[in-house]
């Protein structure tokens, strides 16, 4: 977190970069760490969830029901409530309940639940005949999941990933209120609590631009991974 001496009046324009850049760096760090955790845990979890469902490669209806239920709970709690509710867990994991480390835990949990559903949905949109093809071609379950199910679903997963990153930026702003730092923290302490319109406006611009860039990058990646879109627009 940036150590800034807080002035009484609005932050002068010249001081804005010194205030916002470190905060932006914190947001990027938080979202970056969370996204790595989410991808590493959520991807296999989503594939598993899809395949223990009825009709999947490892049909286990009971396991599916339990997993699905847990994920639904994770998805249904507003992030602020989830964050507050798991403070003891967060403290157990990180030894603290403020700062970036503390924010990363609830963000990761909420993010994993979110991304698991995204992966599950993406896999569901792959026609079942593709899986039959892969089975008939002599593929093992692992090979089928990787090269048929997941590979075909990649554009859909990336589309979902874009939504996910944007949601995580939003969560990081909420996490900012527990002192996790980041652009959201600046927006709340300067813009909201001190009515510093300059800072408020600056954070809004930064967030809007960031989200737009993420969206454009996501759309481009979807295009690149979909042969039909990639080749027809050139």
């Amino acid at each position: 977190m940036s150590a800034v001496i807080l002035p009484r009046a609005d932050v002068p324009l010249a001081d804005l970069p010194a205030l916002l850049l470190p905060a932006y760096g914190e947001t990027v760090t938080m979202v970056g760490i969370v996204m790595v955790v989410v991808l590493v845990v959520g991807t296999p979890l989503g594939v598993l969830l899809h395949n223990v469902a009825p009709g999947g490669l490892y049909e286990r209806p009971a396991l599916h029901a339990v997993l699905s239920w847990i994920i639904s709970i994770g998805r249904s709690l507003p992030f602020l409530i989830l964050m507050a509710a798991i403070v003891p867990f967060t403290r157990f994991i990180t030894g603290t309940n403020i700062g970036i480390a503390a924010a990363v835990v609830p963000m990761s949990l909420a993010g994993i639940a979110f991304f698991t559903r995204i992966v599950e949905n993406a896999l569901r949109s792959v026609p079942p005949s593709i899986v039959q093809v892969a089975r008939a071609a002599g593929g093992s379950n692992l090979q089928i999941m990787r090269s048929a199910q997941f590979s075909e679903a990649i554009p859909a997963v990336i589309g979902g990933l874009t939504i996910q990153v944007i949601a995580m930026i939003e969560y990081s702003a909420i996490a900012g209120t527990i002192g996790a730092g980041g652009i959201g923290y600046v927006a709340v302490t300067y813009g909201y609590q001190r009515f510093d319109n300059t800072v408020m406006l600056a954070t809004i611009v930064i967030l809007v631009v960031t989200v737009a860039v993420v969206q454009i990058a996501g759309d481009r990646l979807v295009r690149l991974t979909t042969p039909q879109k990639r080749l027809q627009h050139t």
Partner: protein
Amino acid sequence: MITLRQLTKTYGRGGTAVTVLDRLDFEVPTGRIAAVVGPSGAGKSTLAQCINLLERPTSGSVVVNGEELSGLPEKRLREARRRIGTVFQSSSLLSRRTAAENIALPLEYLGVTPNEARARVAELLDRVGLADKAGHYPFQLSGGQAQRVGIARALALRPSILLADEATSGLDPDTTRSVVGLIRQLRDDLDLTVVFITHEMDTVRQVADTVARLDHGRIVEQGTLVELLTSHESQLGRSLQPRRGHAGPEAGTRTWFVTYDSTVVPGDWIQRVTADLGTAVHLLGASVETVHGVNTGSATLGIGTDDDARVAAALARCGLSGTPDDGPPLGPRASLGSADAVSGGFLAGAGRVRTGTLEDVA
């Protein structure tokens, strides 16, 4: 060689169980193309999935090239499946892979080195006539080309068995003919045993050596294509005849539907029958073709006499068999619908079995 013995497949259990295949016996000798036809929901796809064990049979045995597959554990099954190529209905290519990469899929799964795989894929692309389409993605291929890629993929591991489930459905007649031609060519070259599932009778006449009709979970009729086409008694044979609309009869004539009932029908049979009966024989509609070197076909005639017995005898002397057809001129060829099936009498006792079959068989 494929041998199915007392094959039963039941989906679900308890009150909602449905027996789709009911103690079915079926055999396809090596190197033969067996067409399987039947109404929608008869269990044709289920039959195919039981042969490559994508679905485990509830009971009964599946023997492919002497190996009993139904009891094998999953890992051994995967090996067995590699000796069975499966061609699926269109649109079953991986959309993010090129034609060549799609064909390479089974080779990849097997763990073939990239160099070997590349050589084999090139050979296969050549074989199905798509050497210039290697780098095309599925959306850049026509339906017929996509189906050829599917066939090449099915052949990647040099299987001895080829299963084709509705492989030509949705293709136009010319494309169907070329795909069917390819399958016959491959059978001749590679001595493949082929199970060809379709509901298109025109395709059956082009591709099949033998034809089996599946209904309510059993093979209710089967025979060689020529046998069936030259047997007026056979319901399956009659449904195989191309039968389009025909001209209306003239006043004072009676309409007959006649089929070639033997392999030695003389080419000038109309003159012969006319001379025999001493009355006018009008040709209202006909379709005659050579199948495996034998003339087969059917005709709709207007005959100026009421003496059905004499007409039948005259037809029989030419190797034909006919029945008076007093209905309105036929529309498009009647399909193997259920109305047809009921009159056939093949179904006696073959009603769909629901619950309880499991115990009966065990």
